[in-house]
């Protein structure tokens, strides 16, 4: 036990690890906030769709940079990856939310279509124009976020901190509106609330969170980060406010625990999947509590 503590203390000397412990709780907090609404809106899978879109955009941006450097070796111009990914994902998110209301292609099918399509195109591009010699490792770390949380730079940390504070602030300011459009969008529209605009704002928030969480758990596991805390909280709590608060707490605790567990040499598991595993465990515990509370 003492050895374990001193081992962990050793890790904390590293800046990388400190960064990870700043970024992870922030991302987890944001993901949990939107998770409640997404689950209730029956749009749990939108996170998956968006993260695949983000993956595709990353691939497009990397390939574009490769192509640019091939054509003109002296050129220093590179497509900035994070901003490009952010903008494209925000647009896709708003589009997907719109499609959810379109009757011709229903939301479910739309998400599946974009999700798989983007994944295929992304992988195709990355293989055609590889940025480094080890494509498989690149792809794997984007998909599962295997090590990227421990390779953050100071810029990443600042971007992440500012964006997640922004997201949380917007969420708090629009909390009542988000509740109303989640509970009953028709009523909100009918009584003169600008539901469409709030939906778009919400879609933008989701997109930002998705892009942020790619760093933490990778594109394939993002949905877990979004839906698990919300589902756990809903087993036990019964008002919107308490569910939201509880899922935020669960999410942050699980993220921190997940990283802690994954670090020691004896365990040494991938960070992303460990966080998800802790979330699954938490869901089990809350389900049990919920069952007993009913009796």
């Amino acid at each position: 036990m003492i050895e374990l503590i001193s081992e962990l203390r050793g890790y904390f000397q590293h800046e990388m690890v400190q960064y990870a412990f700043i970024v992870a709780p922030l991302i987890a907090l944001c993901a949990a906030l939107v998770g409640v609404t997404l689950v209730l809106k029956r749009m749990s899978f939108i996170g998956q769709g968006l993260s695949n879109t983000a993956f595709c955009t990353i691939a497009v941006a990397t390939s574009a940079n490769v192509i640019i450097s091939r054509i003109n070796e002296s050129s220093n111009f590179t497509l900035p990856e994070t901003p490009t990914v952010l903008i494209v994902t925000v647009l896709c998110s708003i589009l997907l939310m719109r499609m959810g209301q379109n009757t011709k292609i229903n939301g479910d099918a739309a998400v599946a279509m974009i999700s798989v399509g983007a994944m295929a195109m992304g992988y195709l591009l990355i293989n055609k124009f590889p940025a480094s010699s080890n494509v498989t490792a690149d792809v794997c770390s984007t998909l599962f976020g295997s090590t990227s949380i421990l390779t953050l730079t100071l810029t990443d940390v600042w971007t992440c901190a500012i964006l997640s504070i922004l997201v949380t602030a917007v969420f708090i300011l629009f909390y009542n509106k988000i509740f109303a459009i989640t509970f009953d969008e028709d009523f909100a529209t009918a009584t003169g609330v600008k539901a469409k605009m709030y939906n778009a704002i919400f879609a933008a928030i989701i997109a930002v969170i998705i892009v942020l969480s790619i760093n933490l758990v990778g594109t394939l596991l993002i949905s877990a980060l979004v839906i698990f805390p919300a589902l756990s909280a809903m087993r036990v709590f019964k008002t919107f406010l308490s569910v939201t608060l509880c899922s935020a707490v669960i999410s942050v605790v699980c993220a921190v625990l997940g990283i802690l567990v994954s670090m020691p040499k004896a365990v040494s598991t991938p960070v992303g999947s460990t966080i998800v595993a802790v979330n699954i465990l938490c869901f089990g515990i809350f389900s049990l509590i919920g069952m007993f509370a009913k009796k």
Partner: protein
Amino acid sequence: MCKDLTLGYDGKAVVSGLNFSINAGDYLCIVGENGSGKSTLMKTLLRLKSPMSGSIETGEGLHSNEIGYLPQQNVVQKDFPASVREVVRSGCLNRSGWRPFYSQSEKKRADDAMERLSILPLATRCYRELSGGQQQRTLLARALCATGKILLLDEPASGLDPKAAIEMYELIAGLNKDGTTIIMVSHDVGAFLKYSTHVLHIGRAEALYFGTKADYLKSEAGKIYAGGQTAGQGREGVSE
């Protein structure tokens, strides 16, 4: 209020040539068979859908934020974790604009609405655990938060047991007495005979009848639909 309205989905007209108007304080009941376009009409009145042709005119400066709406329950709400108070307060949103939180007066308005429908003791209870009647009252209280002028109700008593349904209709009648205009879609023949002042009967593809209740019951369509119940019986029904 409505002029030569044609409604429909995807370019196919469901109802056409609809003409009717109502005044403040009226109690209009919209009746008709399934698929005759009652819900479509409701959505158009609420401006959730645009009419295929024709227009809806509102007089006396009735803004869209002065309309209250009691929808039929949707799937999302069945397992939605929300307290009654949270749901009722969300009705106040249309008056808060960009302001992020509810003001004291809005909170009071929500409490008053709950008081009025005698659900104030349930304020902290979870919406999904209430009985059907209590849920409908919660949604009605929310609609009252949005407005005191005009309420549009879509099958307010569907899924309620007879006793709860009668209570619901009595509440609505009470609101109407206090000056709220009511537009209600209903299958319930007994209810409209008893409470409404005007009737709009939509048949397949055209409006069959619009007018006051007394006239309606004498008309051909009314005789068939009301199934032999006379106006007199309907009114006596209040005593039950």
